[in-house]
């Protein structure tokens, strides 16, 4: 065998160590605790073939390790130690793990419901703590352990030196380990099931039957073993040394610091390159700083998945208990309005397949999601903004995370997908997520016979976002269980900061930390970052107040900013330590603080227009009682100022004036702010006004287009609005009796005609419309009466329904009449001609005049009419022509004109007559002598 590969060699080395360990454990009454943390380390596929040879030797130790695998974190260790040499070990191991598996969610469930049990549960689940406890118990055996450690070190040294000498003769080394017999073969009749065989020396050998499970387990344990080898990349003695160090530290901590019974179990590892945020990350549920109820509800939601994800029998029990506890929670959290619907659908999945955590950055949403998922026994798969999230990749990832589990690593825990920063994801991806989560539900109903389990989302997905109001999330909000993250309590944060600072040798006090946490708006991350600036040096309140580190541009909500403008914060006065000493200066400094805070929040919000509108519309409502008129007048003066400044900025694009705008808000704050809680409404008046204004403007536009041009030219918009329309509304009311139109007197007829003419001139009409209550009504169109009418003034008279009907009908008729070929047009033409004559009364007009006298017909009017034989006939023709079918006389000027000309001989030289395409249509008088 080739052992030249250093990695393999290393593994070998440690394997040996482990073996030694085991031997020693048996020597030392088997009471030495296992000291390694089931950390998730990198899993390697480095399962090389030569290890097969060794596997048998490793079996014992490895199985032990398997017992403490992360999945079953209960104390299996002692169990393992007892039947260490047993051959059934593998099977039992399996059972144990299984039973643990089964037991765990159940017991957690129990614990989960019972608030008192939380402690126990957490302790049990927290390996670090567990280790610590055990070590403590054994503290009287310290000397023994010390001996052990020494021995280990010695052995290790020995081994190393030996190994070095035998570096190349590894076969020897191998054979030396051969003494360790494999329990699968026995020469006497064993108790387990066997297969008899004869070996080459003709001796009976009993080979053990192994169940497939056992074999698999063996393999898996081997794979686990390789992992454990890697895990132990830190030498075991070092680990033990660290453990002792930790014990000591804990003692120190306990004596010195332990306040309020909160146990802090931070690893005190020497200065590493880790960020503080990472370093002091909570490792267990109890360490979480975020709001307890939020944590609890998320955990509860995750627990609802147990039924689908984990064993079914357990979930049966779970369901009952969960209902009971759900009720408890319901009672408890009802006031918080964050109740969780515990209903399970037919797939035994929770009603909400997705959980959406939202809240400002730095509150620990991601930490919570990871921790809770881990706590509930899931393997966390994270997807965040750094990943590619276009719909296709998103889909692949989503399916991979929810429908598969890791094959390579032996970590059989189910996945829990955490989609971080989902507010940045494209809409298509989110839509797909929603579809993925919800539509399966429907599919299941359809395909209830052909059970397609692969389609159902059976893994919990936790989404995290900062801004829940992002448009992309609108649909997600409806389908997901939305959990708003409340801000961390600054007291709790300050306590934690105190502890951390004590680890990091920062001298400080509680007040400072509280100030820090309020300054950063309870952002844990920025608190820690700020704190790390003061590493190894004392800080006090002044440092925090004066440093400009740590405060960030927090964008607040619109209403928060308005509230800040209208409300004087009491804390401003309370927090000021100098307020008692000197009244004036303290007032000054308080004002300064107030103004600064207002400026800051206004600047961070940015949209000054909207803010100012809100202030404008609310300032009168809020100051109804106690403010003087002078304040208001002054404030309004500032509004004018604000308006003028923005106008200048907008028109000249002179943004150097922009920084001055927030000072207007500071003034308004000074003028309007009270201690009372401001009831702020969203400013809608201005918007409504513009909407209405536009509506009226459109009506006016419509009206303008309707007015006939001869009148329109004399009017412009304002005149129509101010003069014409309001008065026309009074004029177009004819005084009519409601009788038939034929019975009207002449005056009434005139009135009606006049009204109709006016309305046509101005393009008005009454249009029949159905009211909301179903009755018909005639409405003026364009509805200019709306524009002209003011609320509270009922001066404009309204005509009765029949009058309107009458007018409407008459207008229609009149319009029809106007559309007929207008005879009056000819009339106006002649008028123009006449006018031209009068105007251009020059020599040229003479000839025209002469022509006019002769009544020359234009060529196009000429017709070849057969000459009538007698004048009497003409007369009779005339008589018949003038009467129509009913005997009514028709007065047609055209006909009469023709009649005038019909006797005339054509005077013009050239004329033409349409002759159905014949070329002789154009005729010319040609005299005979012209031809010669």
């Amino acid at each position, binding site marked *: 065998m080739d052992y030249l590969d250093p990695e393999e060699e290393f593994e070998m080395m440690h394997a040996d160590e482990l073996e030694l360990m085991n031997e020693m454990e048996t020597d030392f009454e088997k009471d030495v605790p296992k000291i390694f943390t089931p950390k998730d380390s990198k899993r390697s596929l480095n399962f090389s073939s030569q290890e097969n040879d060794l596997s048998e030797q490793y079996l014992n130790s490895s199985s032990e390790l398997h017992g403490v695998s992360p999945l079953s974190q209960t104390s299996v260790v002692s169990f393992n130690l007892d039947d260490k040499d047993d051959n059934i070990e593998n099977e039992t191991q399996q059972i144990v793990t299984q039973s643990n598996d089964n037991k765990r969610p159940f017991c957690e469930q129990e614990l989960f419901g019972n608030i008192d049990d939380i402690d126990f549960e957490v302790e049990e689940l927290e390996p670090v703590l567990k280790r610590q406890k055990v070590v403590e118990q054994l503290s009287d055996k310290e000397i023994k352990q010390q001996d052990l450690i020494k021995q280990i070190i010695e052995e290790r040294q020995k081994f190393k030196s030996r190994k070095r000498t035998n570096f190349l003769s590894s076969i020897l080394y191998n054979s030396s380990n051969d003494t360790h017999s494999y329990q699968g073969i026995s020469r006497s009749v064993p108790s387990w099931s066997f297969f008899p065989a004869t070996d080459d020396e003709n001796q009976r050998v009993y080979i053990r039957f192994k169940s497939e499970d056992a074999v698999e387990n063996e393999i898996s344990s081997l794979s686990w073993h390789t992992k454990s080898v890697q895990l132990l990349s830190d030498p075991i003695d070092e680990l033990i040394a660290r453990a002792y160090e930790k014990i000591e530290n804990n003692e120190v901590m306990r004596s010195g610091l332990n306040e309020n019974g909160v146990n802090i179990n931070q690893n005190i590892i020497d200065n590493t390159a880790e960020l503080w945020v990472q370093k002091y990350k909570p490792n267990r549920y109890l360490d979480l700083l975020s709001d307890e109820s939020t944590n609890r509800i998320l955990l509860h939601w995750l627990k609802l998945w147990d039924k689908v994800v984990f064993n079914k029998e357990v979930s049966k029990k779970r369901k009952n208990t969960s209902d009971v506890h759900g009720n408890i929670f319901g009672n408890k959290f009802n006031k918080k309005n964050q109740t969780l619907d515990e209903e399970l659908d037919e797939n035994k999945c929770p009603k909400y397949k997705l959980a959406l955590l939202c809240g400002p950055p730095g509150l620990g949403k991601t930490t919570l999601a990871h921790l809770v998922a881990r706590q509930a026994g899931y393997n966390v798969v994270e997807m965040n903004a750094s990943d590619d999230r276009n719909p296709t990749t998103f889909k692949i990832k989503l399916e991979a995370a929810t429908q598969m589990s890791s094959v390579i690593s032996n970590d059989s825990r189910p996945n829990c997908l955490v989609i971080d920063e989902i507010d940045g994801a494209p809409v298509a991806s989110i839509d797909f997520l929603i579809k993925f989560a919800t539509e399966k539900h429907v599919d299941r109903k359809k395909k209830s016979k052909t059970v397609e389990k692969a389609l159902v989302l059976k893994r919990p997905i936790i989404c995290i976002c900062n801004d829940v109001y992002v448009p992309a999330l609108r649909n997600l909000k409806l389908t997901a269980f939305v959990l708003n993250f409340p801000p961390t309590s600054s007291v709790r944060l300050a306590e934690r900061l105190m502890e951390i600072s004590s680890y990091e040798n920062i001298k400080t006090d509680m007040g400072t930390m509280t100030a820090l946490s309020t300054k950063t708006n309870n952002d844990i991350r920025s608190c820690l970052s700020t704190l790390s600036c003061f590493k190894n040096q004392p800080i006090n309140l002044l440092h925090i107040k004066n440093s400009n580190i740590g405060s960030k541009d927090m964008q607040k909500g619109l209403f928060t900013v308005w509230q800040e403008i209208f409300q004087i914060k009491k804390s401003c006065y309370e927090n000021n330590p100098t307020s008692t000493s000197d009244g004036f200066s303290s007032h000054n400094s308080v004002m300064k603080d107030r103004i600064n805070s207002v400026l800051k929040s206004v600047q961070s919000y940015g949209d000054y227009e909207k803010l100012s509108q809100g202030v*404008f519309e609310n300032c*009168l*409502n809020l100051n*109804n009682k106690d*403010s003087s*008129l*002078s304040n208001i*007048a002054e404030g*309004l*003066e500032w*509004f*004018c100022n*604000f*308006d*003028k400044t*923005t*106008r200048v900025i*907008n028109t000249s694009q002179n943004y150097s004036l922009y920084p001055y705008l927030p000072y207007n808000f500071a003034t308004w704050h000074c003028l309007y702010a009270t201690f009372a809680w401001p009831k702020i409404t969203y400013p809608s*008046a*201005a918007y409504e*006004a513009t909407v209405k*204004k536009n509506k*009226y*403007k459109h009506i*006016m536009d419509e009206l*303008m287009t309707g007015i006939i*041009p*001869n*009148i*329109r*030219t*004399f009017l*412009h918009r304002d*005149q129509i*609005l*101010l*003069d014409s329309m*309001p*008065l026309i509304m*009074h*004029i177009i*009311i004819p*005084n009519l009796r409601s009788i038939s139109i034929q019975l009207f007197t002449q005056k009434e007829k005139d009135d009606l005609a*006049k009204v109709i*003419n*006016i309305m046509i001139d101005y393009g008005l009409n009454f249009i029949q419309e159905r009211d909301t209550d179903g009755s018909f009504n005639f409405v003026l169109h364009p509805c200019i009466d709306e*524009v*002209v*009418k*003011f*609320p*509270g*003034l009922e*001066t*404009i008279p309204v005509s009765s329904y029949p009058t309107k009907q009458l007018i409407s009908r008459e207008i229609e008729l009149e319009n029809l009449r106007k559309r007929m070929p207008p005879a009056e047009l000819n009339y*106006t033409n002649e*008028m*123009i001609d006449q*006018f031209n004559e009068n105007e*251009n009364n020059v020599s040229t007009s003479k000839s025209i005049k002469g022509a006019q006298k002769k009544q020359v017909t234009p060529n196009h009017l000429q017709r070849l009419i057969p000459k009538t034989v007698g004048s009497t006939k003409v007369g009779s023709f005339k008589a018949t022509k003038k009467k129509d079918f009913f005997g009514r006389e028709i007065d047609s000027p055209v006909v009469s004109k023709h009649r005038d000309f019909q006797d005339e001989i054509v005077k013009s030289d050239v004329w033409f007559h349409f002759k159905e395409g014949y070329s002789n249509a154009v005729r010319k008088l040609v005299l005979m002598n012209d031809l010669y």
Partner: protein
Amino acid sequence: MSLWADKYRPHALQKVDYHQDQAKHLINLVNQGDFPHLLFYGPNGAGKKTRILALLRTLYGPGVERLRTEHMNFMTPSNKKFEIMTVASNYHIEVNASDAGMYDRIVVMELIKTVAQTHQLDSNKQRHFKVILLTEVDRLTKEAQQALRRTMEKYMATCRIILCANSIAQVIPAIRSRCLAIRVPAPTHEDITSILKIICKKEGLMLPDELSLIISQNCERNLRRAILMLEASKVKQYPFDINQSVVVPDWQLYISDTAKQILSQQTPGKLLEVRSMLYELIVHGIPTNVIFKFLLKELVKNCDMSLKHDIVEISSYYEHSLLKGNKTMFHLEAFVAKFMLLYSKFMEESLNGIF
């Protein structure tokens, strides 16, 4: 055209009812066959448009009165299309460029170029120029007016421009100097009463002197409004009564109501009520200068002499600031609040003086 205001409009310069001397000058001007660019200005209802149209009629004949509305399309540099309605005859085109808002410059430029670059077909029969009638020039932006000044001179050969404005204060001096400014003052009360009487006579109605006086006093020397009021009064009640109430436009009543509200009580709560009333006025499109004017008129009526000066000052201040600003409501309400402050202070002092 059966509305009296339209029906009795004079169509010839010879027939105008007042400012006859001016009419004579105009006739003289036109009889020479040519005229410079003109700038008519004067208050609403004074007869600017009537004179302009009469002038065009003497120039081109009654063909000018055959009007049609046309929609002209323009495109902004940012490729946004918009439409402007024009009224045009064969001889002239009338445009209100301020309808285009901030794009009025484009309208002015494009319009004049397109109109001015085409010559009249037979110039011996007609005039050799067309007329462009630009209304509401005082509402044009400065940019549009700047664009106008050069084109006015450039296309002098093919077109004349008649400008029409309410006041030349908003017209830049460059344009004022390029035009012959003709001021059309509002008719006097006597003019109005005489015109009303003429109309009544033509209609065969009896108009008592008192009523015509009341109308002329209530019409802001706006002849159109006077005639409309007369007609509205006639519809309301015909044989005229001496103490008959004249019909006043609704918005005017509303403004006086607002003023009453302001005077009744000076508290922030009242101010809130007044605000909603002011919003109503703005929504209905009443121009802010009109609001200021009538509000001031109503307020001053009920004020002590010593207060009047201050109130006129603040109202002019806030109207000015309104023109410099954007949000009308801020300025209007600031004016009202300031008035309330002054008024209540004055009332307190005078009360103290009594006791």
